[in-house]
Each structure stands twice: as C-alpha cells, then as structure tokens.
C-alpha cells in the first residue's frame, strides 16, 4: 500500500519534471509570443488557449514549472546544506553553545517563513533568487534542529566511543559514522519541506513578491487569471491543477521514502 504512494508520487514528479526538461528543448510558443490573439479559447494550436495578452497558456505553464521545480531544488539545497552544517556544529558544540543554538533555532522557527521571505524581498526587490533564499533559510532552521537531535543520538552510541578511543579523528567519525546514520531521516524531512517550498513560492508570486512576468510562476499566472476568470476559466484552473499535482507528487514521494527509511513505523498513521 505504502509502496503505491512512492510509485504514484514518483510518477507525478517525473511527468512534471520531464515536461519541464522538455520545455528547454521545445516550446509550442515562446513565452512572450503574443501572436495567438487575446483570450483565445482552448483548442487548435493553443491547447489551453491564450491569456489576456495573447500569450500561449500551455507554454507559460511549462515555463512556470521551471520556477516551481527550481524553487524546490534551490530551497532544498540551501536548507539542506546550511541546516546540516549548523546542526552538526551544534551537535558537537560545548554544552552552553549548544543550548544557545537550540534557543536561537526555536526563535527562528517561531518566526514565520512568509514574513521572513517578505522581509528579504523588501530588501532585495522581488526576484526568484530572493524568494528561494528566504524559503531555504527558513527550511535550514528546521533541518538544523532535526540534525542536532540526530547527531546527539549518534554521538551517544558505543561505536562512536570505540572509534574515538581507537584514535579516529572527528572529521572521519562524521563521515563514516554520523552522516551515514542520519541522512535517511534528513532526506525525508527535506522532501516534505520541498512541497511546502513550492507552495510558499506560489504564494509569494501571487502577491507580486516572486518572479516578475513574462517568465511568470504558477502563482503569478493565477493572479493574472483572476480578473478574467469568467471569460477564460482554464487560465485560472490549469496553473492551480499543476501546482496541486506537483505538491501531491512530492508529498507522496516523501511519504513513501519515510516508510522505506523506517519500516518499523506504525502503519495506522
């Protein structure tokens, strides 16, 4: 049953990812090509119709997918690298430094992602980089807290003491004992966060604080379709469906990975 989650999730992510990769090689129309006429209904050359400026909706959807997947990958990279690094440092640090880091992380996590992102956008201006950086930083705090706890668990094990006694250096212990023991849990957590990152970027873009047009993300496309929702309903539905499909795909994949990483997990949840 759980294996089904993983397969369905990977299938969704692969289909969307494949379509996005294909968009680099071939697009039905260029994103800023307005030759299709305004608000053309779906059918013919324009599979999903055109928007109010005459741009092909399906092409825009593919280009928007680059941003959604790019956000997920970028935020996971920033959050994963920084989070694991700080989590490791805190896990190894002396008692008082570790306490200080723990309190600081709790405060950082209490500070809402969306507000942090808006703050960063306020300074750097609306751009994809600022949005990804903000989402990644918020993710890093959560990953660091998790990593810190996991590292402490591993360090209390006898095999670490044994390695230490036999004279193995700390960096080698991290590589051979700590990281191999914590990466499955961290990876699953990152996968769960990736879905949230896609939603956060869409919200920021919807508010006009993400990527500016014409290479608009799905969130911005939905904002622009809002005014013409009665005359061109497809424009207000397609980006939303794409967004939901991607997030569900990521969530199902994370769910399936979690069961692979921890087969003893209770099945009732």
């Amino acid at each position, binding site marked *: 049953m759980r294996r089904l989650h993983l397969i369905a999730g990977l299938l969704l992510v692969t289909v969307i990812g494949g379509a996005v990769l294909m968009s680099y090689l071939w697009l039905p129309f260029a994103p800023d090509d307005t030759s299709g006429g305004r608000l053309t209904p779906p059918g013919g050359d324009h599979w999903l119709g055109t928007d109010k400026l005459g741009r092909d909706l399906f092409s825009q959807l593919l280009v928007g997918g680059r941003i959604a997947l790019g956000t997920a990958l970028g935020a996971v990279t920033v959050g994963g690298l920084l989070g694991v690094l700080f989590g490791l440092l805190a896990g190894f640090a002396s008692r008082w430094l570790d306490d200080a880091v723990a309190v600081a992380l709790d405060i950082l996590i209490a*500070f*809402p992602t969306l507000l942090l992102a808006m703050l960063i956008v306020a300074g750097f201006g609306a751009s994809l980089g600022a949005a990804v950086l903000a989402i990644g930083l918020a993710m890093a705090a959560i990953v660091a807290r998790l990593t810190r706890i996991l590292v402490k668990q591993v360090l209390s094990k006898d095999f670490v003491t044994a390695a230490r006694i036999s004279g193995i250096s700390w960096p080698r212990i991290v590589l051979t004992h700590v990281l191999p023991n914590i990466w499955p849990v961290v990876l699953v957590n990152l996968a769960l966060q990736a879905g949230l990152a896609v939603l956060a970027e869409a919200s920021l873009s919807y508010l006009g604080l993400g990527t500016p047009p014409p290479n608009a993300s799905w969130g911005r496309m939905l904002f622009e379709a809002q005014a013409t929702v009665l005359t061109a309903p497809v424009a207000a539905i397609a980006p939303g469906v794409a967004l939901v499909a991607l997030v569900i795909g990521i969530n199902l994949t994370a769910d399936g990975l979690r069961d692979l990483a921890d087969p003893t997990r209770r099945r009732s949840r």
Partner: protein
Amino acid sequence: MVRYLIRRTALLLASLALAGVALFVLLRLLPGDPVNALLSVGATDAQIAAARRELGTDAPLATQFLAWLGDVATFDLGSSLISRLPVGPEIAARLPVTVPLTLAGFVLAVLIAVPVGFLAAYRADRWDGPLLNGVAQLGLAVPAFWVGLLLVSVFALNLRVLPAGGFPPAGWSDPAASVEALTLPVITIALVMSASLIRYVRAATLDVLGSDFLRTARALGSSLPAAMWRHGLRNAAAPVIAVLAIELATTFLGAVVIESVFALPGLGSMLIRAISQRDYPVIQGVMLVSTFAVLAVGFLGDLAQRVADPRLLRGHR
C-alpha cells in the same frame, strides 16, 4: 508552574527582543535606501543629505536603534514615508478586519476538523474513514489563494450571492455588509486550515482509541462517549492545544495572503503595499506587531498546555 512561567516569560521577552533587533538590522543592512522612496531620480547630494537627516538614517546604527527602541516602548511606530500618516493608528484601524477574519476562520476550521478528524479515526477500518483522511491529505497540497479564487468565481461571479471582495468603507457600523464581505474569506481560511488540523485530530483520536486507559474504562462499564469525555479528552488535550496554537498563528499569517485575494483593507494588504513601495517604517511596524502576535499565541499555547496536562511541568529542567 511559577518557575515555568518565569522561564517561559523570559523566553518570550528574549524572542521579542531578538525579533526586534533582527527586523531593525535586516531592514537596514539589506540593499535599498529608504531615501529613494522620498526623492525622485536625479536628486542632488544636498537633497539626499537633507532627506537622510529627516529620516534619521544619517546617525550611527546604534543611535538609530536606541531611538527606535524608545519610540516602540512608547507605542510610537513612526510615520509612513509615502502618506506621512503615523503607522500605529493605521495598524489599529486595520485590526477590525484582520482579527475577526483570523478568529472566525480559525473557529470554523476547528468546528470542521474535530468531527471530521474523529470520524476519520473512528471509522479507520471502513471505507469512509480512509476517504476522509485522503481528502484532508489532498487539501494540504492546495494553496489558499487558489481556493479563494475558485470560491470567488463560483459564489460571487457566477451565482452572485456574495461580494467578490472589498470591505464596507463604514466598517463595522454596517454589520450585515461587513459579515457578508468576510464570509467567503473566512470559508477559504477555514477550508485550508482544517486540512492540516484534521490530520492532528485523527492522530490524537487514534492514540486515545488504542490506549489502555480507554479499554479499562470501557471494561469497567463506561460507555464510549462517557469514557472519551472523562479520559480521552483530557489525554488528547495537551498535544491538540500545542497544535491549535501553531495553527492559530498560521491562520493569522494565512490571512495576509487571503486579504489580497479579496481586496480586504487589513494588515496583510498594508504590509504588501508597504513592501512594494519600500515604505520602511510601515514594514517595520506591521512586522513587529505580527511577530508579537505570533509569539504571544505560542506563549499562551504553551501555558494552556501545562494547565491541561501538569505532567509536562515535571520533566522540565
């Protein structure tokens, strides 16, 4: 309890202070000079210097920070760079939109999530329990602004039973119009928030239904509703309260986005306009108030959790 109260209050104050410092430093270190908001392109050096003096950004950072701290302590949040109106009263004027929106959305979400989450757990072995759970899982992947957009197109634009957006200029002096204006936004927030709440209610119910104490109570002749009421509720309360506190804070932040969908004149739309105009005093003021609200809800949630389950106090360092 007293020791915990002192510790937790200290943490609240420390978080607030840290958030204040972070807000202040970030807004000044990030690129983008607030002076640009005041002047047109091609301003002379003398004009720039005069504008800096007027804003107080020519003083050293530490002096600026102390001045700002003093102002905040006396509830003076400065004035907007664009409209020149004081920020504090403007925030106060927008709370009557944001606060009812948040609270009503939250209460409705709880009213949806508790019975649905309970049923999803109680009927986990039949077809309808997993179905409810699956729908809730799907709901987690749906962005709030899209739900709002779809509700507007169906109920406001197609059926024309409710307004598509806006808030009566007279405010709450026209209660019927105000309630009408908030109906769709509240439903949007409630639907989205209930999706994540249902998962927690379901998990808590499953824990209680599988517990030894419930089986014992049932074996002693107590009916299931009575056993749930006497023992289940109390045991499930602490984790549920913790989640509720987080969700209330999330609802408040979700309102920021929803206000934009429905063009409501609340804190969220104020913040987003200020960001696009780089109106620093307004950004700072709204962020400070929002952060305070979020931290205060977390504080109250932690206290309520300890009142509901005093066992949590014992494990504390």
